[in-house]
């Protein structure tokens, strides 16, 4: 499978603010456009801003058990108690270790892979390079469960394999969380680093080789500094992703009560005891929001400086590859082993367990009693039809609504036709900095206290997911717009066609591959998005991913959970495959 979802670099980056010429005449359609902009501004504000304000409001209402709206007056007691408790320190430390550790794992792995695949003559690139990106199709919740199955100390195949050579591993630990998150972060990071390495003119490295610098020095002194901007941008983006990531720390950290910010917020709101601590959750939510925004600001600043290094890119040179010499075979073996352990084995174990009667190691003997019983049980379980329907509704509505709104926002901002378009676009990019667990909590607070009767329905999940994916949607479409030849639009305008006709007949058809891609991307991600669905779940609006969480955490039925995970994985893989197939078709056209 060739994966080419270029999502990461564009997201959250500040577009160069183009000079807006003042328009003398405003056409008859102008006011309608401004009205749509105003309506969307209200909508975006309603989807993102209002929940966050409620969250902030709740954090100033000190009471452990009461609903925040029932508490009179304001106080900073929540903050005081959190800063005085030892928990903040340990959670912050955990979060820091988890974030830095995962980042380092991702960074080292993706740098090595990107350099090997882009710049050296390592054999088998055509198979191994796409394999490095293949995990993009696996939702993070499925990844976490797959790793729990493959590396749990009692019967995980990997744990058993390593025990034979005297290594004991336990995935339910901080090192386990770090390894899993680190490996999960590789594809998105690889996607940002590999193009930078591919664009790097080999002459720059060859020049160092001709004066006698050995490989390690060339890497350290020439290659790394030149791809520095790409690496640091990718790192900061990944830090935002790690910080807000919920499934891995929750599934792997909760059994031994290792909390990070995101899992603590969910735990406070949905504790096993059943008594939610709203003030604690909201206060931690505010802290997490501040942290995430700070990271995003740093990232945007870095992106702005990145153009300084543009000189290193260029065309018209021959792609020569560094020979690995006698290390060629050992290196490819190491890479292949990593690919097997990090990419293939978890999915394999997931499949194996989903076909097995109980959780057990992978053995030849086990082949005999593999069956589809788990799938049958899962699919015929009571309420499964409703869950499927809920999931379909949530995912389809989210993908369609986010793509439609995102298209308007991106097109309006790029064409600068209506007042406020640029501002609207910037507003959605701020929403990118809201961690999904915080967004989910904020939407939960809003609908708990504002009597709009969508709480408990699939619509509340769809609303929160639209808010979550809107920034991505408008960024993806904006990237496509930037690549569109402006002359094609101008050629239509000079024939005298109305702006509406130009948009309908020329702009949207030309954009349609990007629109499809955006839709499928959101489809795949909305399907696997756990924290929002989990926080907003009730008996009537369960989705597949929540079902998966419940099956895995409450009933600990590994085979059934695996079957569910495989079902989600298959749907997601088809969507991602379609995205990339369209990407390939675009290249051919």
């Amino acid at each position: 499978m060739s994966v080419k979802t270029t999502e990461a670099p564009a997201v959250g980056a500040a577009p160069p603010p183009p000079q807006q010429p003042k328009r003398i005449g405003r056409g008859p359609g102008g006011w309608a456009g401004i009205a749509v902009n105003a309506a969307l501004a209200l909508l975006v504000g309603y989807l993102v801003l209002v929940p966050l304000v409620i969250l902030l409001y709740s954090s100033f209402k000190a009471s452990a058990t009461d609903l925040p709206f029932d508490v009179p007056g304001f106080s900073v007691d929540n903050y005081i108690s959190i800063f005085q408790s030892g928990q903040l320190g340990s959670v912050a430390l955990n979060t820091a270790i988890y974030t830095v550790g995962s980042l380092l794992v991702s960074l080292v792995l993706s740098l090595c892979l990107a350099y090997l695949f882009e710049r050296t003559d390592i054999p088998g690139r055509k198979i191994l390079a796409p394999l490095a990106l293949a995990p993009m199709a696996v939702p993070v919740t499925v990844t976490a469960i797959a790793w729990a199955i493959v590396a749990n100390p009692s019967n995980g195949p990997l744990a058993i394999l390593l025990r034979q050579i005297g290594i004991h591993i336990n995935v339910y630990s901080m090192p386990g969380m770090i390894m899993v998150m680190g490996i999960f972060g590789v594809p998105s990071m690889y996607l940002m680093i590999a193009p930078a390495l591919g664009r790097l003119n080999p002459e720059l490295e060859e020049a160092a080789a001709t004066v006698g610098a050995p490989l390690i020095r060339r890497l350290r002194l020439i290659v790394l500094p030149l791809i520095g901007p790409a690496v640091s941008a990718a790192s900061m983006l990944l830090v935002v992703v790690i910080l807000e990531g919920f499934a891995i720390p929750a599934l792997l950290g909760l059994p031994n009560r290792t909390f990070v910010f995101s899992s603590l917020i969910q735990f406070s709101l949905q504790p096993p005891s059943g008594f939610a601590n709203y003030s604690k959750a909201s206060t931690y939510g505010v802290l997490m929001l501040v942290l995430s925004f700070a990271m995003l600001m740093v990232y945007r600043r870095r992106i702005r400086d990145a153009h300084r290094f543009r000189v290193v890119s260029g065309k018209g040179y021959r792609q020569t590859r560094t020979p690995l010499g006698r290390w060629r075979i050992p290196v490819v073996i190491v890479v292949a082993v990593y690919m097997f352990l990090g990419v293939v084995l978890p999915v394999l174990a997931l499949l194996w367990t989903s076909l097995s009667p109980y959780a057990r190691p992978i053995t030849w003997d086990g082949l005999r009693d593999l069956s589809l019983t788990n799938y049958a049980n899962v699919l015929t379980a009571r309420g499964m039809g409703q869950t499927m329907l809920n999931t379909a509704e949530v995912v389809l509505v989210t993908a369609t609504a986010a793509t439609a709104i995102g298209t308007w926002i991106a097109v309006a901002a790029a064409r600068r036709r209506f007042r406020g378009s640029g501002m609207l676009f910037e507003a959605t990019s701020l929403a990118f900095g809201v961690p999904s667990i915080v967004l989910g909590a904020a939407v939960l607070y809003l609908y708990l206290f504002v009597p709009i009767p969508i709480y408990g329905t699939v619509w509340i999940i769809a609303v929160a997911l639209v808010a979550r994916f809107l920034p991505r949607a408008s960024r993806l479409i904006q990237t496509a717009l930037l690549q569109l030849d402006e002359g094609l639009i101008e050629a239509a305008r000079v024939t005298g066609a109305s702006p509406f006709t130009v948009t309908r007949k020329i702009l949207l058809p030309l954009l349609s591959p990007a629109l499809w891609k955006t839709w499928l991307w959101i489809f795949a991600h909305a399907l696997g998005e756990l924290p929002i669905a989990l926080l907003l779940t009730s008996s009537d609006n369960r989705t597949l991913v929540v079902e998966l969480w419940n099956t895995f955490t409450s009933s600990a039925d590994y085979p059934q959970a695996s079957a569910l995970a495989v079902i989600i994985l298959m749907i997601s893989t088809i969507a991602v495959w379609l995205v990339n197939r369209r990407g390939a078709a675009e290249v051919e056209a």
Partner: protein
Amino acid sequence: MSNMSAQPTASSITIHELRKSYGRPRAGDPSYAVDGVSFEVPKGQFVTLLGPSGCGKTTTLRCLAGLEQPDSGRIVMAGRTVFDAGQRHQVRTEERPIAMVPQHYGIWPHMTVLDNAAFPLRHGRARKGQQNIKQRTLEMLDQVGLSGFADRWATQLSGGQQQRLALARALLSEPEVLLLDEPLSNLDAKLRVKLRMELRAFQEQFGVTSVYVTHDQAEALALSDTVVVMNGGRIEQIDSPERLYQQPRTSFVADFIGSANLIPARHVSEVSNGFLVQTDLGAFLCASRGQQKATSSETGHVCIRPENVEVHPLHSSPANVADHNEIAGVVAGAEFLGDRLELLVDVKGTRLTVTASAGLSARTGDPVVVRVQPAHTRYLAS
């Protein structure tokens, strides 16, 4: 739609004092891409905006199309004011009576050749009441030699075919004014010459007023009724191709159109039949043709075209050389180009480019006399 019927006027386009700057001009440092450009295009004429890149020619064209909004000035098109900064009046692109052939042709890749060409009839400003759209489009495609390609995807056309399709599309919208933005610049040299002849033939056949932008002086001279030479956002000269070549008004024009030897003037005095210009190489008598009289303090250049220089081998001593329009020099380089001989003649350290007949036997180091007729010597006040 707006009323497109133009009142019969002599000029199809009038541009008055057009100014346009990109970015915000700071106080005291106004850098204009187009700086006070005024010209008129008579109905049915083919006018070319010519200049080096960055001279403001494309910006001027885009202002005409309404794709850029000028900072100041006025544009009248087919008797209708389409832009007036003073009155804050701007007619939008889609309501101007224009058609355009963009530099990269603007051929829509998601449509067939026929759909591309028929777009103005189906969706353009004159879309109401159009009959027989398909048949008329096919006729036009036939005219530009694309009739066999009507059902192909537009991306399957070659560069030259795309250019023809863009032209067909533009002509089908029956514009008052046809705007062409370097439409030949992406083609190879031979095709360029062929299509440039076709282009002119179509323009004459349809009688459409055309404004053409190019940086290629050969194109401009070959195609145009009138050439507007621009430099640094300003107009250097507006003239017919012949006059532009023979009577350049500034040293920029002389240098940009064809090649020219420009000799700095030291002193200029007016005589009965022209100017007597003292230079470091000697004195030149320059015939004045419709030129303003010059004050003696003025300096400038003497312009001599290489093909207007006569070269003779010097047999006798330099003393026999006449006191003006004749100078002695040494051949510093000779290139045989088949039909002619291109010489570099060194005169007191200044090198003149001279085109001589192929039969002249001149070698590097030979002493020669170069001579120019006053009628071919032009004084350019700077």
